[in-house]
């Protein structure tokens, strides 16, 4: 490589500055949120139930629990379906037009705006299946939305398993199902999990479908079944930020946002660490 002349360093410095700006955006976001919300944030705020009349006396426990339920529900639905679809695409399907159709459908599902998923969920789960504005309706809507992300990540993990693993297994007399279940899936599983985690992190932060399918802003107890109404952190942030008359509502919104961002960051960071360790460990 010929070393760059001094003049040529200029574009490099610009690109470097852009990257630093990108990183700065992340830290600025956290810093500004902290500045606005840290005074409100306390153990009480996280643990205590919400009080609608006087927001200063309550916490956001229901919203946290609601979001956790949503996250678990989405995992329960979209992870098995997503991995199974990926297995079909990589292990079973031949290079046919039908496979191409499925791949195109996945790509397009990934591009559909979240608000459109909200409309779909509203018609199918809330009105047609008569779930009403309940936890299960939100979970199913978000599951459909998360599905393409889980599938894409799982397909990547499955195709990374070398073909010789499958060949050896088949050569030993295993059926395709045995090969998938005992050889391919165990090798690809951490990769699939990474994709699942990232999907759930995004589903947790997604607000538009929840607005449309319907979270509530006020709940006296905790939901005990999936067919009850629920509160969720992102919706709570939205209402506090835009529709609450209390003058300190925005600090409460920022504190709630901090809790939400802590959840999504932990999930994403977890996924990144799993992926990194996987790459170190992988000897194929």
């Amino acid at each position, binding site marked *: 490589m010929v070393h760059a002349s001094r003049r040529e360093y200029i574009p490099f410095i610009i690109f470097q500055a852009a990257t630093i*700006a990108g990183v700065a955006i992340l830290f600025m976001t956290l810093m500004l949120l902290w500045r606005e919300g840290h005074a409100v944030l306390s153990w009480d705020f996280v643990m205590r139930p919400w009080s609608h009349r006087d927001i200063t006396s309550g916490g956001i426990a229901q919203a946290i629990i609601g979001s956790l339920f949503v996250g678990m529900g989405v995992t329960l639905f979209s992870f098995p379906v997503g991995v199974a679809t990926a297995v079909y695409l990589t292990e079973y399907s031949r290079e046919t037009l039908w496979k191409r159709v499925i791949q195109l459908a996945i790509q397009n599902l990934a591009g559909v705006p979240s608000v459109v998923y909200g409309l779909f969920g509203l018609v199918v789960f809330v009105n047609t299946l008569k779930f009403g504005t309940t936890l299960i309706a939100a979970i199913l809507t978000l599951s459909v939305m998360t599905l393409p992300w889980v599938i894409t990540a799982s397909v990547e993990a499955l195709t990374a398993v070398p073909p010789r693993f499958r060949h050896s297994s088949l050569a030993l007399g295993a059926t395709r199902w045995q090969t998938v279940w005992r050889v391919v899936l165990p090798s690809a599983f951490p990769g699939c999990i990474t994709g699942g985690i990232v999907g759930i992190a995004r589903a947790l932060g997604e607000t538009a479908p929840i607005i449309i399918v319907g979270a509530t802003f006020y709940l006296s107890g905790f939901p005990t079944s999936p067919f009850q109404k629920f509160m969720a952190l992102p919706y709570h942030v939205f209402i506090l930020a835009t529709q609450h008359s209390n003058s300190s509502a925005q600090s409460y919104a920022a504190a709630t946002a901090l809790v939400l961002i802590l959840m999504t960051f932990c999930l*994403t960071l977890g996924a990144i660490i799993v992926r990194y360790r996987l790459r170190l460990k992988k000897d194929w």
Partner: protein
Amino acid sequence: MTAKGDQKNDLSVAVLGVHQRFPSRFSYDHIVFGTIAALTVAFLVGIFVFLLTIGAGVFRHVSWQEFFWSSNWNPTAFVTPAWGIGALFTSTLIVTGLTVAISFPLGFAIALYLSHIAPRSVRECLKPTIEMIASIPSVVLGLLGILFVAPLVARVFGLSNGLNALTAALMVAIAALPTIASICEDALGSVPRRYEEASFALGASHWQTIRRVMIPAARSGLLAALILGLGRIIGETMIVLMVAGNSRALPQGILDPVRPMTATIAIEIKEVVIGSVHWQGLFAIGLILFVVTFVINFIADLLIRRHRV
């Protein structure tokens, strides 16, 4: 199918190394996985059919011309409701255009730095950091827009209220940045290494190689990044709902408050009677969003395929 036949079939193809071409087609596991995979197609078709059947109903009450060309959207008016999405569509266009103008150059620069300029250790550390931006929920970006960016924009431009198209675009740009950066990086990273080496061998400098070889070679992938980013930006709802200013008037400039199509759906859907013309109108807007993003994805897919070949 018997287990024995299965084995023989698979064993022979394993030896031949073409096992993908002759799977055991009619085993139970094949049928189960195939059915689950078909769900994705069912969901996509289902979304389209629901949007179409409900959304098309609006045209029984409203003319095509009014819906697409009029810029007066006022479905709840007491005397004469108006159903033109012109202003909403223009709002989407303005916010999307501004966002692309901000986030694409930045995302491209980040991708270029990470894929070809940064030393390995710096890349390993910065790449996850940029990815973390994607896990900032959009409602949080909306909140930051209300709390900090809107007042800043208001002060800089001397406005009474900073909730406008520019503020929304600034925040949406942050949301779109990691997507654009990561697709650009894929495109730049997938240029064969021998191109780079050949260029160096011919005596080109690092920057010459990037500018004359790597970027042109990755052109269609970069275009795909632009288009996919566009799809994400058009669909962004929460940020524009919170900081775009929420005005149904036809915007005249980038400092006007706007209300893009996504925000309109999110604001109005909870207050309409199910099955009413208003309800159908909102689904028609949803249908437009769906079709636009569908076309965008299709074009991007074509570009990426050409890029791979």
